[in-house]
């Protein structure tokens, strides 16, 4: 019962994500999510390599042209593959990635409620 309440709250929180962002905020959000391909583990936002600078210019251009955040991600995914995105999509490849931790949480709850008699 408690667990259900917990999840309801979490669901509520997620569904209230109204993101009113300016262009600058959107650009920052996108470039933080893009991997700099010639760096060793830095995002385009953090990197100052040639590639990252060009990426930032291109993201600017796409935002000006009116691309949405998802469209920009799709654009770069098409050029470079999924590896360039830091936020893994929820598709058949990543179901386990996203759901396994939650599953472990639930299993933990079950183990606790079974093995420990909680008396009032």
């Amino acid at each position, binding site marked *: 019962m408690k667990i259900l309440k917990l999840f309801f709250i979490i669901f509520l929180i997620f569904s209230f994500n109204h993101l009113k962002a300016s262009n600058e905020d959107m650009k920052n959000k996108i470039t933080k999510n893009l991997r700099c*391909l010639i760096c060793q583990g830095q995002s385009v936002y953090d990197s100052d390599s*040639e590639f990252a600078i*060009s990426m930032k*210019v*291109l993201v600017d251009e796409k935002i000006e042209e009116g691309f949405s955040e998802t469209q920009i991600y799709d654009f770069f995914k098409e*050029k470079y593959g999924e590896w*360039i995105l830091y936020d893994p999509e929820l598709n058949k490849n990543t179901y386990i990635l996203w759901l396994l931790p939650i599953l472990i949480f639930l299993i933990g709850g079950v183990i606790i409620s079974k093995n420990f008699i909680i008396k009032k």
Partner: protein
Amino acid sequence: MKNKLLLIFIISIFIIIFIFFYKGLQNTNIYTPETKINNKIPLFNGDLLYINKTVNSSDLFKSDKFYLLNIWSSWCVPCRQEHSLLMNLSKSKKVELIGINYKDTKVNAKSFLAELGNPYKKIIFDQKGVKAIEWGAYGVPESFLINDGIIIKRYIGPLNKKLFKEIESLIK
């Protein structure tokens, strides 16, 4: 009994994890973006280096001919090394070279070509580096072998004699 079953179960899981890690070790770690072979060339437009004109990708690439798109810049050291091979290739009638000058100044690009020769039929001036990204490139030098609007092969890094021979055999 229950304990033994649990033990066997856990050991199997660890064996599976071990196998995954073992296989993972064999994989190379250098990421080459899916080489997009047999993919259509991107549609784009760009300014030319020598002439003050904007061209469309459809103007540059006609079907029935082989093209080698080469991304280069004057400040890139390996580009100098592959340049002589490009000059050789430009002599062939079977393939036409198109260049993308990446994040350079017109002055430096032109003097580079004046010094080492110009193998390109046309050169796109990509000062911001965004055209290269349209091609899915991320550095210099990179080359794409194109025919009939499709990328046949992609070369990351400078061309060498072996790759040069490969290109020659592909364009026959």
